[in-house]
């Protein structure tokens, strides 16, 4: 018998702006010991479906249909009866582990709470069981962790704690709603590995909800593809990935960037680069340190080394990809280059001019030549300004004396170029989707026809299908206007698609810098290798056959030993001491690698 059988499940929301039909009469089942994946983009209703199934829907939602847990009907079940199933037989883990854990309770207490409520264990028994589960989930120093508070743990550790909480009672079904979306890719790989182990060791069925086909490919047995509240396709994993039938599924697979296949048919590729083109930008030993106040009667300050000695050059027409996980300093680097954030040391030379030596007025005039596209399309547009006004802003401030009709003409022209209807010039950002707003962001960055654009995670907040469109747009604009790009992203697959050269950052320092193919096919630094190995490939056979390269836990950036994580042999065991700075060595022409201990 299936563990969970869903039939004709229908979810509607009653909002002041009208009724929303989130889930349209869907049905599926989860079998014993299997992992079922539900994949869909934002707005597909996949999360709402599961919240409705276990009775956690918001108050304005209406559930209809049937959800059978081992034959027992859950829809409409009384709260206290539902509570016997929830948390012990069917458990759930959520996307954001920081806000999903109670901040004022110790982690251990939160874990033991489930055990004591559902299995009536005594404190001692619960403690022992909790420790045992922590070992299962590979959390070292379990006893110490139990006494900590959620905010004292890293993101990956918190998610592991959530998994412990969800598996301590040995549930039949674990529902995971985007469990790795807010985690770094290396941490994501570890969490997926843990989930795979749990499935085999405990025989727990897993329902995995995700928008990422690569994640689905790594642990699922069967897949349901969801769009707009309905399933468009379902089947065993090999069918879905190798023989997709529905056009939406095919579109999803097609749009997803693959780290092992940079060239996708029907999509743009970067224009060929000539390394003899003039140098636009030279960054030399850039450092950005923020003083962090430490406790004590007389406050002391410790430097947070967000960027700690980064150097590179950028040629005309070149795209430099900058990759790294959270805390590596890539966004800070971008802002420091554009002088939006003050730097602590280093030089930035633009077309031969040292930006530090420029007067305020001259610097302002120079801004015409470099622009930036931000990550969050809605946050980077002033909600009180029309999109026309937002796009025209750089024009108005940097091209003095330009008259109204000219401005409108140029904005209209730009709107057309980015694929938006010029008639929408007086609309407001909240009337558009994320993808359309990001096109507005592109238009704003392009309107002055700059020589360089920095894309700071410009596509990370978008659905995969939209992401592909925006990447194509940026590449085609680059082909037309010939500007250089600094493409910052944590997603190595996308970076491979657009870059000529790639720079890998870790805790503010450069680990490896080389041309695209060398990085992806011939990585030398252990961090680069681990990073590349961790990226999930939307191909089940390849994904599961991949070797797993473990990474040490991300150290605190305030700890001076952090910079020598890969060169432990030269490390002085004192968190405050001045440490050796690993040098960049040119192992092949144009291929630089930071010193590291041999693996």
């Amino acid at each position: 018998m299936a563990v969970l059988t869903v039939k004709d499940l229908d979810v509607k929301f009653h909002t002041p702006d009208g009724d929303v039909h989130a889930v349209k009469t869907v049905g599926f089942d989860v079998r014993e010991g299997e992992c079922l994946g539900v994949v869909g983009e934002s707005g597909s209703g996949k999360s709402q479906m599961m919240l409705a199934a276990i009775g956690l829907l918001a108050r304005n939602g209406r559930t209809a249909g049937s959800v059978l847990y081992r034959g027992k009907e859950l829809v409409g079940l009384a709260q206290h009866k539902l509570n016997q199933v929830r948390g012990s037989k069917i458990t759930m883990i959520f996307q954001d582990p920081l806000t999903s854990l109670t901040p004022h309770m110790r982690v251990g207490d939160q874990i033991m709470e489930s055990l004591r409520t559902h299995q009536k264990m005594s404190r001692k028994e619960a403690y022992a069981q909790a420790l045992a589960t922590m070992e299962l989930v590979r959390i070292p120093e379990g006893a110490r962790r139990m006494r900590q508070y959620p905010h004292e743990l890293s993101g990956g550790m918190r998610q592991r704690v959530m998994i412990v909480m969800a598996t301590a009672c040995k549930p039949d079904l674990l529902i995971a709603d985007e469990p790795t979306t807010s985690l770094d890719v290396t941490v994501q790989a570890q969490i997926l590995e843990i989930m795979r182990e749990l499935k085999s060791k405990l025989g727990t069925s897993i329902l995995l909800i995700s928008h990422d086909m690569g994640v689905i490919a790594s642990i699922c047995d069967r897949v349901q593809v969801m769009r707009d509240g309905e399933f468009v396709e379902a089947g065993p994993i090999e069918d879905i990935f190798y023989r997709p039938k529905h056009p939406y599924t095919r579109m999803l697979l097609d749009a997803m960037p693959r780290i092992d296949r940079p060239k996708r048919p029907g999509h743009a590729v970067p224009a060929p680069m000539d390394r003899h083109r003039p140098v636009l930008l030279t960054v030399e030993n850039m450092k950005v340190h923020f003083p962090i106040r430490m406790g004590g009667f007389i406050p002391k300050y410790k430097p947070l080394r967000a960027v700690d000695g980064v150097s590179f050059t950028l040629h005309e027409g070149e795209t430099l990809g900058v990759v790294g996980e959270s805390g590596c300093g890539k966004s800070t680097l971008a802002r420091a280059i554009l002088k939006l954030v003050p730097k602590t040391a280093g030089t930035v030379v633009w077309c031969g001019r040292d930006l530090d030596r420029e007067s305020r007025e001259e610097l302002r005039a120079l801004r015409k030549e470099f622009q930036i596209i931000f990550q969050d399309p809605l946050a980077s547009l002033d909600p009180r300004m029309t999109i026309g006004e937002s796009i025209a802003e750089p024009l108005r401030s940097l091209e003095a004396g330009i008259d109204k009709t000219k401005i409108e003409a140029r904005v209209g022209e730009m709107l057309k170029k980015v694929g938006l209807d010029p008639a929408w010039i007086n609309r407001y950002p909240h009337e558009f989707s994320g993808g359309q707003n990001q096109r507005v962001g592109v238009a704003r960055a392009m309107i002055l026809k700059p020589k360089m654009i920095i894309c700071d995670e410009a596509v990370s907040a978008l659905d995969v299908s939209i992401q592909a469109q925006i990447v194509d747009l940026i590449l085609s604009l680059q082909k037309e206007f010939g500007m250089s790009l600094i493409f910052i992203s944590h997603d190595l697959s996308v970076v491979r698609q657009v870059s000529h050269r790639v720079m890998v950052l870790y805790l503010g320092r450069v680990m490896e810098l080389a041309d695209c193919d060398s990085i992806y096919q011939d990585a030398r630094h252990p961090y680069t290798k681990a990073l590349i190995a961790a990226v999930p490939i939307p191909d089940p056979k390849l994904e599961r056959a991949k070797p797993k390269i473990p990474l040490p836990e991300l150290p605190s950036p305030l700890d001076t030993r952090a910079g020598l994580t890969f060169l432990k042999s030269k490390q002085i065991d004192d968190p405050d001491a001045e440490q050796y700075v690993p040098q960049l060595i040119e192992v092949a022409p144009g291929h630089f690698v930071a010193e590291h201990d041999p693996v």
Partner: protein
Amino acid sequence: MTPILPSERAALMNRAQNIKGRSLWTDARRRLFRNRAAVVSLAVLGTIALMAIFAPLLSPYTYEEADFSLVSCAPDWWRMETARCQAGGAHWFGTDAVGRDLFVRTLFGARVSLAVGLVATGVSLLIGVTYGATAGFIGGRIDEAMMRFVDVLYSLPFIFFVIILMVVFNRNFILLFVAIGAVEWLTMARIVRGQTLSIKQKEFVEAARAAGVSSFGIIRRHIVPNVVGPVVVYVTLTIPAVILAESFLSFLGLGIQEPMTSWGVLISEGATQMENAPWILAFPALFMAVTLFCFNFIGDGLRDALDPQDQ
């Protein structure tokens, strides 16, 4: 836990027909007018305001006309007893302890109380916005120092100083406005500073800086329009607090002086007459309570309209 609207669909539905966009203000206005309590409050408030403005035209009596033959008479439509009161004219709210018409006095009281409310709030708005915006925009050490100062002042029951001031300067009318306004500017400053800080950190401000917009330009075009919302809400909620503060002072004998009158004065007079002539307290108290209710409903409505939370 909001359901996510598939907004691609929504965008497709907006065909190129209407070029005019739907600004956030339009949205807010629509939401406000759907709030029944707020709409009713606006209507009631408007009526009271009109009555206050046209007070002299609405009654044959003036507010200081004392008719000692008609002392403490109940309203016309509630004449209970004495023949003494039958002789009187149209006293719709009755008369007070010295025979003045209560209806006119209530309306004149409305004038004064509403005026104090608006002017004192204006004072607090001016001081608070300037202070808060400066602190928020400059940031850093100066901001910290400025906010420390606010914290210091915040920890006092300011009304004590107002009382001292009123005593010291002999109940100066202008001083009343300034003093009461000075009580409320602290919270206004805090709100404005908080908003300024949070907007300063938003990405669209960074984008503006990358586009070369000057600091002044950023303040004018980005910060001010985005701060207006919460400020308007708070102003609507400050006015009733100010009216209350004025009535408080008047009750203690330190506010509006004779022969002018405000609701606070009327209520304090009425409180002493409560046993034998309850209407003297009832009508001004009713008017004041209703006005305060209306402002609160409108303020809440504005807050929900400008920043709709998930329910």
